[in-house]
């Protein structure tokens, strides 16, 4: 939705939770692997049994710092743990170990592409902090069961909570932000951000600024939207919610501060948001410093060591690809979105064939299509960048036309062989440049009428020469025949 289409401005801030890619949980040695049978990945610590104590996973801290650095945050030299107290059956200790007043990262921003594709916009990050995940409550209403079932496998999995400033101006922009954040976290190997498996979860705070005509505006009450299970759902839920708030404002005139903050859940089936019931006292979390864990300090050297592991990040790679290989923002976007290994493949291909644009076309069309069809990752792809570059060089040299090159490519994929081998297997006899030139000279000599027509400006007449060439040798590249003939005819004048 474009802001200019509506009589209001949308203000959105996001709270994103991502599960970190650690092997073990945040405070105990249980596995974090997804999909195990219920309650098979628990121990006294994550069940919260009496007397047990948490000990922090070093890797989780490193991943948090890595994320903070990539989001341009200030990394706290001193941070600590706090308990957030509330009762829920999937929270076995009755409190969640989290960070309250001294989060690991503060400030920062993420650059996201804008709709025109050329510029970027900075979305502010307020804070990033570590906390433990809760377990899962499962309720099967259809089966009519009176009980909910509790699975604690997920309890204690490390989570990073990322809170943005209310900088997002449209549901589409919120989706773009999430896409870019997911890409960044994938590149950092911090999280796989899989919404289906719950490794990325989003809540949104949204309200409207409605112009009052005198250059000022009135703000509607902020609503927290939960239960959005895909990026598309985020976009739809926020689009729905914005319009709902506008209509509610027209009806009630309620402004920010007139009513308490409301929480609404997205109903995917009905495609609407619905109010969620919450008692007033439930928000009194009684945070206090976690006495079972000691604080965390980070030195300059440790920061530098972690900074060195960041690698090149998506936004930088896009800029480099555009500058180095002269490809469009769109092309660089498609390539970067495929992940670091695909970018490396593309770069080798572009270097090897000497034409960034051509490499981009082949990478996006032929390579990506094959990967998608066969459900392969780039690491499983049988045609190396060097081999594909060899093929593209032949195309550039005019030794093969595009149609033939595609056949060769398919053969290379099938046979896992080099371009030369594939050409041989397919029986494509390549006509060398000298032979081709001799053939063209012969045709020009034997077709004076055609030559005259071309000289008179009837370029189309050259088609007759190309046709004769193909008859004499089916392996010639028609485009090249045309080029050489034109060159020779023009040389005669």
């Amino acid at each position, binding site marked *: 939705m474009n802001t200019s289409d509506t009589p209001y401005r949308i203000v959105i801030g996001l709270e994103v939770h991502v599960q970190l890619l650690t092997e073990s949980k945040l405070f105990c040695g249980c596995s974090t692997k997804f999909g195990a049978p219920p309650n098979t990945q628990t121990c006294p610590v994550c069940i919260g049994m009496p007397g047990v104590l948490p000990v922090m996973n070093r890797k989780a801290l490193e991943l948090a710092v890595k994320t903070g650095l990539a989001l341009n945050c200030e990394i706290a030299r001193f941070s600590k743990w706090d308990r957030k107290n509330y*009762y829920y059956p999937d929270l*076995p200790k009755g409190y969640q170990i989290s960070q309250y007043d001294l989060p690991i990262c503060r400030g920062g921003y993420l650059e996201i592409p804008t709709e025109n594709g050329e510029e970027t916009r900075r979305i502010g990050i307020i804070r990033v902090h570590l906390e433990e995940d809760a377990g899962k409550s499962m309720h099967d209403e259809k089966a009519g069961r009176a009980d909910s079932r509790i699975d604690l496998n997920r309890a204690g999995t490390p989570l990073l909570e990322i809170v943005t400033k209310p900088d997002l101006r449209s549901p589409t922009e919120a989706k773009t932000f999430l896409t870019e954040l997911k890409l960044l976290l994938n590149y950092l190997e911090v999280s796989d951000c899989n919404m289906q498996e719950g490794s990325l979860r989003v809540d949104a705070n949204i309200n409207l600024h409605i112009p009052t005509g005198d250059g000022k505006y009135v703000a509607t009450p902020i609503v927290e939207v939960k239960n959005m299970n895909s990026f598309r759902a985020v976009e739809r839920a926020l689009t729905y919610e914005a319009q709902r708030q506008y209509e509610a404002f027209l009806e009630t005139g309620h402004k920010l501060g007139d009513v308490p903050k409301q929480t609404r859940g997205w109903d995917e089936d009905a495609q609407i948001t619905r109010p969620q019931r919450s008692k007033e006292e439930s928000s009194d979390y009684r945070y206090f410093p976690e006495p079972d*864990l000691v604080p965390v300090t980070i030195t300059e050297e440790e920061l530098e060591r972690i900074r060195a592991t960041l690698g090149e990040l998506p936004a930088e790679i896009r800029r480099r690809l555009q500058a180095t290989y002269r490809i469009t923002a769109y092309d660089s976007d498609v390539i970067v979105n495929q992940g670091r290994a695909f970018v490396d493949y593309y770069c080798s291909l572009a270097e090897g064939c000497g034409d960034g644009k051509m490499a981009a076309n082949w990478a996006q069309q032929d390579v990506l299509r094959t990967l998608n069809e066969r459900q392969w990752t780039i690491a499983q792809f049988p045609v190396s960048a060097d081999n594909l570059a060899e093929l593209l060089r032949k195309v550039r040299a005019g030794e093969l036309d595009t149609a033939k090159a595609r056949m060769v490519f398919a053969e290379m994929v099938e046979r896992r062989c080099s371009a030369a081998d594939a050409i041989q297997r397919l029986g494509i006899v390549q006509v060398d440049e000298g032979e081709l030139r001799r053939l063209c000279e012969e045709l020009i000599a034997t077709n004076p009428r055609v030559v005259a027509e071309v000289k008179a400006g009837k370029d189309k007449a050259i088609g007759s020469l190309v046709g004769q060439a193909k008859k004499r040798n089916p392996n010639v590249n028609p485009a090249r025949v045309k080029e050489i003939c034109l060159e020779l005819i023009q040389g005669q004048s």
Partner: protein
Amino acid sequence: MTSLNRFPFASSAAELLVALRKGDITSEDLVTAALAQIQTYDRHVGAFLSIRGEKALDEAREIDRRRTQGDKLGPLAGLPVAVKDNLCTQGEPTTCASRMLANFIPPYDATVVARLKAADAIIIGKTNLDEFAMGGSTETSAFQKTRNPWDLERIPGGSSGGAAACVAARMVPLSVGSDTGGSIRQPAALCGVTGLKPTYGRVSRFGLVAFASSLDQIGPLAQTVEDCALLLEVLAGHDSRDATSINRPVPPYRELLLQQPEKVRIGYVPEMLSDGISPDVVRTMEEAIDVFRSLGAAIQEVSLPHARYAVATYYIIACSEASSNLARYDGVHYGYRTDEKAMLAELAEERRRLQQEGNLAALEDLDTALVRLYRKTRAEGFGAEVKRRIMLGTYALSAGYYDAYYLKALKVRRLIRQDYDRAFETVDMILGPVTPGPAFRIGEKINDPLAMYLFDLFTVSANLAGIPALAFPAGLSAEGLPIGLQLQGPPLSEERLLQVGHMFQRVTDWHRRRPPLIENNGPLS
């Protein structure tokens, strides 16, 4: 050694170890004697919540077999030890003297329990305590009262009341307790035994059911300082499962007792001997000062200006942490759970009544089934004192009160710690009373929480500051009840405290006095 056989625990653990090593006595003899002593006296005293009887005997026989075989044995091989019932024992009940955990069987050992087992000690049973260690009299136990062996009408102190009483009644030579605000030292003093609260972090808390995490510390109780040193050596040490555990080597405490400490500077706080303190306690202090002086110690006055705020500070912090630590007892994953059918019926009845009355506001606020499950479970599973402390802590942490109570208390805690730091610049340790008076009568303070809390005024500061403190018997009241004193030192000064305490016990015999109950009725040594 027939006398040892008949009444072995007149001897100290150190003496018994020698007898075991020499073959004068077997571990089976010791365990048999301990069980006999428990059999005779525990129906009066009520120190134990569970006794391992046959299991302990089997383990003792196994130790004896290994000893005969010439195997290398652990430092406490064959000695019976009692363990407070807030320390988890794998596969065996750990109740915290609470209805909430009456049937809880931990699938893990507390680190100290694992260490005792590795030292080849024989765990004889689990001792009674105030529910979740919240109390100073062991009266809040959900299961039974423990009585002071010196006067069965009086409290043994608490919360490690059972742990102190079983040593006082000579049922075991060694006992493990926990001290959050005096819970080792206060019962030790009231029962006439020796007890040490180590530096916070010296002993792993893993497997100690938490009361107040930043204050809890496990420690030894025994007849003598030497035995405490022996037991501390086994209990102490770094544990990777406790992030607050101190990573420093454990000194050979017992061996170090033989070293005469250099000239010791002992401080005392004159203000502490003023208002509201029993004259017996004042006299005991004065006599002990004379003893230490005669031993060559330099005695000087020190000041702890914030000591008078310690009780208020302590109860805010301890209750705040407790309110969170005890949130896990909700009837979902383990422990007591209310009768769900009855709960649902009750809730349905309330809903019907409110609908009839047309009370829509109350209907709207009515608990969900889950919330009511929690509330009924906790209301039925916890006793009155635990509930009071959870309420107090929840209040102190809640929105609008956090700064005035909890945060304020943390700041005063810093000032209390700084008082000690300053005092320890001029003295090596501070001698002081453990309690304002001897053991009070059962029932005397149980309905007056504030009076009960104020009885802790001398012990809570060491927990707030995280410093070690050694309590030892130093006199008897006019009525013949034990009076204890404590030596508090800077962090990790256990070895000096033990040396000085040992020095005191070499020239006094208060720690050898036995309660009349066993002196008059028991088999004589």
